């Protein structure tokens, strides 16, 4: 108990202090500059605090931080879900939707298939399909925050490529979270919720959706009438922790359940902008908490983790570039941009970290440590290389493509 309290205190202290003092521009080369600008250094702080070194945030302590996990994961899920307002999405060209779906599908398949084989070779007894599905789902996602940062730092003029990258970055995460929610349900070992041993995975997916829709309706009911700022926060925190708690309690994905809640609330009549704005203001502390926690559970020393991380990076980069290429070719008749748009979609940031933590909590695979190590390492490398590649793409695009 003592260690949990001290661990929690240190975690909150660093994140609240950190979010004011970090995300700063350091005069360094592009990769290293973005490393600090995105707060990736907090992964290493977490690593130092974890059981590999100091031990304040060891695994037992992390296990006790359930409410914090459900709050953080739920936060990310809700934020992404709330952006999925069909009315707003329709304002963009239809080609953008097709491009997002094609790009995500190609990347997913390109990463899922080899990892299914690889994981089966490592441990045939493990839930290889669920784990590979989860890895493929993480690979799909792009960090919209990072893209926004890079676009801002590059100071490039608005072009079709910029719009497309930002659009894909915002919405391929929805696809990733959905696949991830299904993956967590596949790894479920408990009896199905309806008690009938028929299509248990679908039953768990259905349960996730029902809980998510219920929470979305509740959020809508409570926030539609104007309420004071502190009331609004009571509702938001209450719903996120409740939905997250239900998810963790039944072994579902808090990211997916809260995303469904966000999508539901976003598409019911009435204003949800206040909820989104309130949530968006608190992004950095949540992000830092997850970076630290991810660092704390990270076991970078495993050779297998390093090999898998390398494989994952290669497959994901190729998958993204190929996915972008196929997507641009598919929409060529309606919209013209550089076919190498995939180079602008490599950054992952907080999205991948949140998914890695959700996977860690799912506890459904014996390969959890290796997979989390792989995903965290990949995020670090991605944050170093993706800004340079995105900047090059955007600079090229700014000179006249699209």
């Amino acid at each position, binding site marked *: 108990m003592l260690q949990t309290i001290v661990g929690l205190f240190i975690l909150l202290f660093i994140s609240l202090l950190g979010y004011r003092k970090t995300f700063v521009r350091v005069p360094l080369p592009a990769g290293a500059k973005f490393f600090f600008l995105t707060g990736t250094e907090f992964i290493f702080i977490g690593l130092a605090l974890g059981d590999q070194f100091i031990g304040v945030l060891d695994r037992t302590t992390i296990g006790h931080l359930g*409410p914090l*996990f*459900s709050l953080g994961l739920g936060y990310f899920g809700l934020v992404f879900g709330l952006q999925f307002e069909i009315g707003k999405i329709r304002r963009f060209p239809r080609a953008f939707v097709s491009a997002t779906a094609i790009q995500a599908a190609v990347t997913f398949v390109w990463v899922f298939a080899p990892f299914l084989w690889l994981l089966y070779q490592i441990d045939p007894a493990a839930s290889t399909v669920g784990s590979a599905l989860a890895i493929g789902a993480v690979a799909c996602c792009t960090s919209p925050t990072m893209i926004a940062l890079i676009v801002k730092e590059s100071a490039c003029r608005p072009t079709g490529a910029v719009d497309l990258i930002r659009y894909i970055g915002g919405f391929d995460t929805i696809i990733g979270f959905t696949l991830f929610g299904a993956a967590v349900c596949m790894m479920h070992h408990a009896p199905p919720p309806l008690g009938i041993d028929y299509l248990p995975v679908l039953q768990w997916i259905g349960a996730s959706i029902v809980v998510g829709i219920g929470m979305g309706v*509740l959020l809508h009911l409570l926030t539609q009438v104007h309420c004071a700022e502190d009331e609004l926060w009571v509702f938001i925190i209450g719903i996120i*922790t409740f939905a997250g708690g239900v998810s963790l309690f*039944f072994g579902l994905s808090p990211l997916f359940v809260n995303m469904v809640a966000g999508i539901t609330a976003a598409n019911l009549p009435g204003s949800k902008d206040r909820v989104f704005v309130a949530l968006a203001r608190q992004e950095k502390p949540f992000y830092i908490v997850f970076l630290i926690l991810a660092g704390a559970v990270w076991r970078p020393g495993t050779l297998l983790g390093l090999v898998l991380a390398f494989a994952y990076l290669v497959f994901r980069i190729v998958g993204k570039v190929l996915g972008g290429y196929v997507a641009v070719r598919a929409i060529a008749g309606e919209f013209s941009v550089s076919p190498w748009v995939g180079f602008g979609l490599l950054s992952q940031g907080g999205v991948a970290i949140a998914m890695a933590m959700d996977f860690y909590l799912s506890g459904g695979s014996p390969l959890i440590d290796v997979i989390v190590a792989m995903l965290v390492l990949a995020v670090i490398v991605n944050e170093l290389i993706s800004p340079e590649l995105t900047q090059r793409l955007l600079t090229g695009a700014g000179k006249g493509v699209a």
Partner: protein
Amino acid sequence: MRRVAGLLVIVIFMGLVSAGVGGWCHLEGARQSLSFGFLLIAAYLLGDILSWFRFPKITGYIVAGVFAGPYVSNFIPMDTVVGLKLLDSLALAVIALSAGGELELAGIKRRCRRICWGVAFQVIGVFTGIFLLILAGSQFIPFLKNAPAPVVLSAAGIIGVLSIARSPSSAMAIISESKAKGPFTETMLGVTLIIDVLVIALFAVAVSVALAVAQPDVRVDAVFLISVGIELIGSILIGIALGWAVDYYITRFGAELPVFILGTAFLVTFFSDQFARFLDTFYAIRFHLEPLLTCMTAGFFIRNFTKNGDFFIKRLDRLSLPVYILFFSLVGASLNLAALRQTWMPALLLVIGRSFFIWTSAWLSGRLGGDPPVFAQMAGFSYIAQAGVSLGLCGILGRSFPDWGAAAAVMVVAMISINQLIGPVTFKYALDRVGEARGKRHATGS
């Protein structure tokens, strides 16, 4: 209607979760997370709904906690309630900071005479009344029936002292919700806070005397009494130091004050507990700093002896809504309804007797202190609520007197449970009647 629908949705969900397969929970804290979210929303909504019928919101928070707790629906089992105790202590520390900050030195000086009268009459009147009531009715109280005279005297004395205890947290919540301000509120808050400190010292005296009365070979434990005195003085001194530290932080940095306040409350609660354990384990000394008193002193110091008082109170106010919701809903979930079921009859008689003595003492002190008649009539309604300190003292009662202490504690806990339910309602009524309730305050979510 949206609030009612919202409440129904979340209760149905919680019911389904609880009635379901019992979860597949491999993560400690998942149930806590679920309960935390449920209490936050359900308690707030019920408080809001009850406020339509002129009930105080905290009654809704408490009732929601009672409903969700282990004795009614068991949505939140006992181990989860215990697991959420850290939040409870944290919330209490924040409320104590707020209560101390609400006391203005100028106001206290102005109403010093009335506050002193109030404290003196309440302490003497309620103690004497309950003491005599227990003596007179000892044959109707199961654990005192046929007990020897020293035991009856000891029990009467200790229950008399416990009946004096009040609930500053309930008082603060109602004042905050009603946005009450004025001489009646100032006097009432002053009396409540002073009595809550006094009761700790009086309880120590009562226990020492009772031990000496019950066992003729034991003398009044002077060391115990001195250590209680040191505890109180130590808590006040640490409170002053804490107040100074918070003021320094505000002047020097100022940013993220709510987080700093929560951190401060956490440190006070946590370290007073750890310090007590350390002394007990390594030196066999029972010494416990009172976090409530420390935080009240800190709040009082910041408000009255620094330039940042108003800023501090405003920032603290922003935290108040979730703090009150969590604290009072957890109070509700912890209310021992099993104890109430066992001893409801003597407990109810005690509640009626205590309310009568409180009202009479308050009326007398008001009249002698020169208060307007309506103040004197309503004052008694403001002091009914009980919680916090008195519940803690019940635990000591059980440990100090193994023969009858536990049974007495069950009865007192039952009395406190009833008082905690009716106290906020009567206090709000009193504030409405004296005209100091100015309407709903933003901080409690109105």
